[in-house]
C-alpha cells in the first residue's frame, strides 16, 4: 500500500536555515545540510528546501547547499524558491535535487512547466500553488504571496496538471503561519479536481492537523515546517502518532 508522506520543509536564506531544529547537539543549527540529514535519519519521506534568498547575488548559494545535501541524504529532495527558467531547473537537478517546485514562473510563463516536464519528466516537476480565499473562491498568488494573479486556484490546478506537473504543492496563505490547521476545503477541492498527487501545506500546529490533511483534505503528502522546528515534534513522533490513528505511513 502506498504510504502517506511526511515532508519537513526548511526555509533557506543565503545558504542558512532561517527557522531550524533547536537541538543541543547540533554543531551548526543554521546549516541546511546538517538539518536535512537529521530529518532524513529521523524518517522523513522527503526533504523540501524553500530558498527565500532575496538578493540576486546570493542566488547561487543554494546550488552548493543542494549539492552537499544530496551527497548525504538518500531520500527525495525537493527544492523551490526563485526558479525562473528551464535552465534554473536544469542546474538544480544537476546539483542533486530530485524535484523542483515552481511557483511564480509557472503563473507567468506556462512554457516553463510545459517544457521542463517534457525535458526532465513530470516526476520532477512540482507546481507550488499559493492560494488565498477571497470569499467565493481561491486565488493564486505569486512572488512569495505578494501579488494576486486573480487566477482561480482550482482551474489553475487543473491547467498545471495538463501542462505536465507531476505533483501540486498547495499552500493556503490564509492558514500559513497560523498553526490552526490546513485549509481542508481548499485541499480536498483541489485534490478532487486533479488526478496527480497533492501535497498539503500551510497552517499545521499539531499532529492531528496532519491527519486532517490526509483524511479530510485528501492529500497524498503533508508538508510542515514549524512543528518540526525547535523540536516540538520529531518526524518519528509524527509518524508513530499517524500510525496509531490508522494512517498508513512508512515506519
Amino acid at each position, binding site marked *: 500500500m502506498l*504510504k502517506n508522506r511526511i515532508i519537513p520543509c526548511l526555509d533557506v536564506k543565503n545558504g542558512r536555515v532561517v527557522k531550524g531544529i533547536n537541538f543541543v547537539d547540533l554543531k551548526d543549527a543554521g546549516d541546511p545540510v546538517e538539518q536535512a540529514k537529521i530529518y532524513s535519519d529521523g524518517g522523513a519521506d522527503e526533504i523540501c528546501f524553500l530558498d527565500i534568498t532575496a538578493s540576486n547575488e546570493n542566488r547561487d548559494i543554494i546550488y552548493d547547499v543542494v549539492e552537499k545535501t*544530496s551527497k548525504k541524504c538518500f531520500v527525495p529532495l525537493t527544492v523551490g524558491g526563485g526558479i525562473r527558467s528551464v535552465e534554473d531547473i536544469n542546474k538544480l537537478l544537476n546539483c542533486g535535487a530530485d524535484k523542483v517546485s515552481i511557483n511564480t514562473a509557472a503563473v507567468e510563463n506556462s512554457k516553463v512547466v510545459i517544457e521542463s516536464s517534457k525535458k526532465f519528466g513530470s516526476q520532477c516537476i512540482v507546481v507550488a500553488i499559493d492560494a488565498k480565499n477571497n470569499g467565493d473562491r481561491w486565488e493564486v498568488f505569486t512572488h512569495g504571496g505578494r501579488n494576486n494573479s486573480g487566477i482561480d486556484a482550482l482551474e489553475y490546478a487543473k491547467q498545471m496538471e495538463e501542462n505536465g506537473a507531476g505533483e501540486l504543492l498547495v499552500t493556503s496563505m490564509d492558514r500559513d503561519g497560523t498553526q490552526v490547521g490546513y485549509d481542508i476545503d481548499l485541499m480536498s477541492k483541489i485534490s478532487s479536481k486533479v488526478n496527480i498527487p497533492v501535497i498539503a501545506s500551510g497552517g499545521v500546529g499539531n499532529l492531528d492537523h496532519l491527519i486532517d490533511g490526509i483524511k479530510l483534505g485528501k492529500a497524498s503528502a503533508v508538508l510542515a515546517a514549524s512543528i518540526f522546528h525547535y523540536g516540538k515534534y520529531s518526524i518519528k513522533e509524527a509518524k508513530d502518532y499517524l500510525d496509531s490513528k490508522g494512517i498508513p505511513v512508512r515506519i
Partner: protein
Amino acid sequence: MNVTIVDYNSGNISSVINSFKEVAKNNINIKVTSDLNKIKSSDKVVLPGQGSFKSCVDALKKINGLTDTLNEFAITNKKPLLGICVGLQMFADIGYEETETKGLGWISGKVSKIDNQNGKYKLPHIGWNQINIVKDSKIFKDIKNNSHMYFVHSYEFIPNDKNIISSTTDYSSNIVCSVEKENIFGTQFHPEKSDKIGLKIINNFLEL
C-alpha cells in the same frame, strides 16, 4: 572493479551517482560515461532512466553504437547490469508512453500505463510503497519482505514470463517492481532514493 553508470542524457542522474559513490568501497571504481570502450571494459553497468520511455530510448539511440554495446555487454557477454526505473522499462520489447516505441527487447513484454481505475488511483504513483518479494533475487540479500521503497512512475512493465519477476507492489494492481533474468537486474523503484534499505540494494548489486 569498474562500474559504469551510463550517462546518455536521460534526465537527472545525480542522485544515482551520489548513491553509488556513497556505497562503493575503495576497490570499486564508479564511472559516469557514455564512452563505448569504457562501458565494454566495465565489470558492471547501471542503466538509469527518467522521463518517458520514448525519450529514454531516443536518447540511447542518439549515441552511436550505444545500444549495440549494451546488447553485447548484457546479452552476449552476460555481465551484470542494473536498470533503474525507465532503465528497467527499456528491457521490454515495446513501450506505449507518448507513442509506441521499441525497447531493447531483453525481456519480452510491454510497458503500459498503470490503470488508475477512473481516478481512484493518482498518477504518477509517487512515494513509499512496500515490496512483496515473490522470488529470491541476489540484489535482495538481507532485504526484508515488505520493505518500503521510493517510487515515481506512471507506467508499468508487464513481462510475458512471470518467472523473472522478483517483487511486486500493490498500487491499483500488483505492479512489477523488480526483475532478475540471469545477469540482468532491474528495479522500478529508486534504490538511490530509498534511504538505507535502497543503499543496501545498491551494495548488493556491487557485491555480486
